[in-house]
């Protein structure tokens, strides 16, 4: 990619993006193209990270392990649903990941957890997301009992209107009371440590090397 185009892209995104400065946008774009590889840019083909590549990034860089959640995160990034995360989706996604406000993050997380996108997190969805969260006790008769119980506990904690499912309002209220429950059903945001590492690595000032 030529320098001029990079410059142009950077300027465009910097204008749109509230959380990153120009340098950071520049770094992220460079990273994106590094990750995508020097594919030939042809009209008609979308340039971006496909599901597998993105899954890999989430796994390696942000330490996410739950396949289902990763899948949902990909959907969260891929706004236009074309199966690829393009450069604009990349910047916006990371903007939320790294600098998002609590409100933004809540919206995003709720979308991730609302598997069928009906605006509610139902018991079934919870069960689905939590089903691997407990160590299976071989002694137990019903291995799912623990999970069901956990779902009940969660509902008791979060379902403020007692309708047996979580609306965004329920979720928001809970999270405002207890921020820890933002990622209640699985890690869908980078944990603080990997976030710091990522930022340190990506936003490295190139001049630093010159000094050394």
């Amino acid at each position, binding site marked *: 990619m030529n320098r001029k185009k990079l410059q142009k892209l950077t300027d465009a995104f910097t204008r749109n993006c509230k959380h990153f400065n120009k340098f950071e946008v520049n770094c992220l774009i460079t990273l994106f193209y590094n990750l995508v590889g020097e594919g030939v840019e042809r009209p008609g083909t979308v340039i971006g990270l496909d599901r597998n590549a993105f899954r890999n990034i989430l796994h390696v860089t942000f330490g996410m392990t739950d396949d289902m959640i990763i899948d949902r995160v990909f959907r969260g990034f891929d706004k236009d649903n074309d199966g690829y995360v393009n450069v604009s989706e990349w910047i916006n996604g990371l903007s939320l990941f790294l600098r998002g406000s609590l409100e933004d993050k809540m919206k995003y997380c709720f979308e991730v957890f609302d598997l069928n996108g009906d605006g509610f997190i139902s018991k079934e969805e919870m069960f689905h997301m939590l089903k691997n969260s407990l160590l299976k006790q071989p002694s137990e008769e019903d291995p799912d009992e623990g999970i069901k119980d956990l779902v009940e506990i969660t509902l008791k904690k979060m379902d403020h209107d007692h309708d047996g499912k979580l609306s965004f309002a329920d979720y928001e209220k809970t999270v405002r009371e207890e921020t*820890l429950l933002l990622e209640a059903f699985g890690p869908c945001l980078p944990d603080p440590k990997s976030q710091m590492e990522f930022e340190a690595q990506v936003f490295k000032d190139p001049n630093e090397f010159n000094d050394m």
Partner: protein
Amino acid sequence: MGVALTRSAQWVAAGHGPAALEVTPLNEAILKEIITFVESFIYKHPQEAKFVFVEPLEWKTDLEPSAFNSGYVVSETIVKSEEVDKNGQPLLFLSVPQIKVRSFRQLSCLLFIAGDTKLKEAQACIEANRDPVVKILGSDYNIKKEDSTALNILDKIIRDDDLEGKMKMKIAMLLKQLDLHLLNHSLKHISLEIRLNPLAVKKDIELLKRFSGKGEQTVLESIEYTSEYEFSNGCRAPPWRQIRGEICYLLVKPHDVETLCITCSAEGVFLNGGKTDDEGDIDYERKGAVYKDLVTFLREKSAKFSENMSKQDLSSNEGQQKEKDQLEEAPKKEETTTFQKALSDSDKSTLEKNQINFGKSQMAKRLEPSLNWKATVDYKDHKISRKEGQEEKHGGKQLEKPRTSVSLGRAQLLRKGAEKTEEFVSESSSESEEDEELPDHRQEANADLPSEYWQIQKLVKYLKGGNQTATVIALCSMRDFNLAQETCQLAIRDVGGLEVLINLLDTDEVKCKIGSLKILKEISQNPQIRRNIVDLGGLPIMVNILDSPHKSLKCLAAETIANVAKFKRAQRVVRQHGGITKLVALLDCAQNSTEPAQLSLYEARDVEVARCGAQALWSCSKSYANKEAIRKAGGIPLLARLLKTSHENMLIPVVGTLQECASEENYRAAIKAERIIENLVKNLNSENEELQEHCAMAIYQCAEDKETRDLVRLHGGLKPLARLLNNTDNKERLAAVTGAIWKCSISKENVTKFREYKAIETLVGLLTDQPEEVLVNVVGALGECCQEYENRVIIRKCGGIQPLVNLLVGINQALLVNVTKAVGACAVEPESIMIIYRLDGVRLLWSLLKNPHPDVKASAAWALCPCIENAKDAGEMVRSFVGGLELIVNLLKSDNKEVLASVCAAITNIAKDQENLAVITDHGVVPLLSKLANTNNDKLRRHLAEAISRCCMWGRNRVAFGEHRAVAPLVRYLRSDDTNVHRATAQALYQLSEDPDNCITMHENGAVKLLLDMVGSPDQDLQEAAAGCISNIRRLALATEKARLVARWVQHFQVHRRNSNIQVEIQDHGSCSESRNFFRRSFITSMLPFDQHWTSRPIRIKLKNLMDSPVNQSNFRLRHVTI
């Protein structure tokens, strides 16, 4: 007996030839018990006493054959008992020095014959027969093979039904009872040993040596004696140090500290000055506190040691628990055999009880099967096979019991010792108590479990077995329980939640850590949980979290530490893991740095971090070492900076920390230097009561210092203090405020201010219906105020004397000290003393001289001084207290300097009355005062000298002081720097110098030169007294001088007695103007031994002339008498 002998008796270490019992109190006690047993055997069990031992007990005796008389066949070197066994062998056979005894009867007789040497014989017997039971009963009864004994015995009974078998059985049981008794006895004995002895120290060191070496798990790197040579008494210290109770010196290298050079002495263990470089000598001087034992000492010095030690403890604890469980199982068995009874009860009474059982059982065999013997009967009923297994079990368990109890007993004792010192350090509830409480709680919980218990148990299960998502849900859900409630707190602990929560802190999961800390923070309000958290090693992990980059984590960790570190041990752990430095670092919130407007997820503000840090420091600052650590970590400037903020919730912990720390001198200086007082005063005006309280408390602590008191005034702190007095609802605050007023009123300027603010009237109003903490301070403040006349008047007019005198009957030591001081200060007014006297205050003061606390005694005696001084008819009043004078004179035997000084002052006042002086002289005041003379304390010197000078005024007290060697030390007082001492001393010397012998002593001690300096003093009293004293000394000195001169003349005169020149020369001397009389007097004295015949005429005339003067006549007589 076997068990006791092998386990409990202290055998001399192996390898020293034949086994020997050490001469220790424990062994002696055991031997004595054995002797009593044997001696009483023939009376209690006459049948069994005739039993012939399987093998004789054989040993070397010191008894002479001649000691044996009736009942024995005695020859030169051989003694045989007349009593013989079936085969005609004598039951006692002595062939000097070897003795063989084959029955208890003979043993008993022998002990009787041995008389005073009983103990020696018993010892020799036990030493020679390490296993007496086997010898007595045969190898089937070998007690050492504990597990099978019971079975064997029972077996035997079935097999041979004969009389001998039964007899053996019985003796075996009796011996077993003795054994048990001995064990109990020795246990009691062990528990009495508190002082360290060489043996205990040696064992400790050997034990530690075993656990020392390189590597992480060992408790120490090395532990060595400084000296290889061990004296016969087990000490390694050189003999001249042994006199001081020192046992040995050690070089200990812990993992984490420098090599320590330690002295082990009978009083305890302490750090000495270390090896001096040159010859490897040790600087024996004590350099640190004395600890109870080596382990406690090392625990304090080395964190690593205590950590690894507690690991050892833990493992042994587990073992102990297991054994306990086993033991508890045993009694559950249905059948209770006599054995078990004998073992479960331990006191002597069982001995008799069992005897009855024996008797019964014998009968029962004939009549009906008794319960006690059911087992045996069962055997007979051919149920052997079924019962055997059970019986075997029984035997094993039963015999295990005494063993474990003894070994555990020792272990417990050791640990108790360690714990005790820990308790000594911590004021809070004792740990051992709580440990005992623990299982109770669990049992209770089982009895009636609330529903929360099960829910929490479920959540903990998810915590244990869930991934981070489930963990976070479980943590959040757990927080919905009322964690302030004790049931929930204990439920979390009891289902093992604490361990999980603490483990979570050690993970990388920020969210889990936050969740866990939030719960720990809540439940650590409970004192038991705090201790559990410390026991589980939670504190070091939390201290590490303080380094975390996440501020909210730091906050939570600091807050939890603040809760947990409420007791000493926790505070120590925090310090030892570097927590103080980290907490102080939290205080350093970058105030100027712009904080992000929007806080990122899970983050907190710097101010909040600082607040939590201050909170934790507040908790930690209750221990001295931590205060030091805070100071060294640079905490004071940071605290001072935080004090400038206006957040109340920040100010409270900051001021709280300062207030705790202000008990240290270093801090007070720093507080002054950092201009903290100003802010404290400012915060006095805050609305928050707690803040006011802590500020007042901090001022109270700091105002010991004069400059600080002035600062408080200059910053206008007195007015708010006076204002806060009016609000009496909050007692804690009132106590702090009155305390601050008390300390501030030590400065006169402040008192004036307080008078302006009408604080004195308010204080008088607070003399009634207040808790003691408040009263102490109020009375203290009044005591200070009373130093001024106007205030005394105010107090009298407000009716303050009555309540003050009423408080004299209290028991609170601090209160009494202050009350006596205040009453004493009031008594300066003649009008007040009337009131005090009428209210019987003087008598109350006098009776406080009997108070056990020296401070109270001293204060009461000080208060008595103005009472006696200012009262009308003081002499009569003093005499009216029956036994009062004797009491006060006897207080001169006290070893407290302040008491002595005050009593001297009181005596000075008492002695103003001649009659009383006579009485106290009879009570021996002179020798007691004289004994005190060798002191360096200027206060005591002054009052002592005053008392002496007063007491000189009676009878031959002057001479008596000289006889009791009080004069020379008094002269030394003149070298003191204190003018008050000089004056008092000069007066005392003046009084004493009326006696010539005292003058000589003074002169010899160089008093004249010192006194001459005093004459130049601007103090008139001092001048006068010094001059008077000098003149007395001078006069005598002159006389002596002349006497010596004359003596020379007389010698001369003896030689040339008929030489008429002498007359002329004597006359010349006689004409010497000022001291003619002295000269003459001396001359007469010198002349007296001479025969009239020798005396030449002119001299005789002289003599006659001299006699004309009445002064000389009396002198003549005096000298005559003395010579």
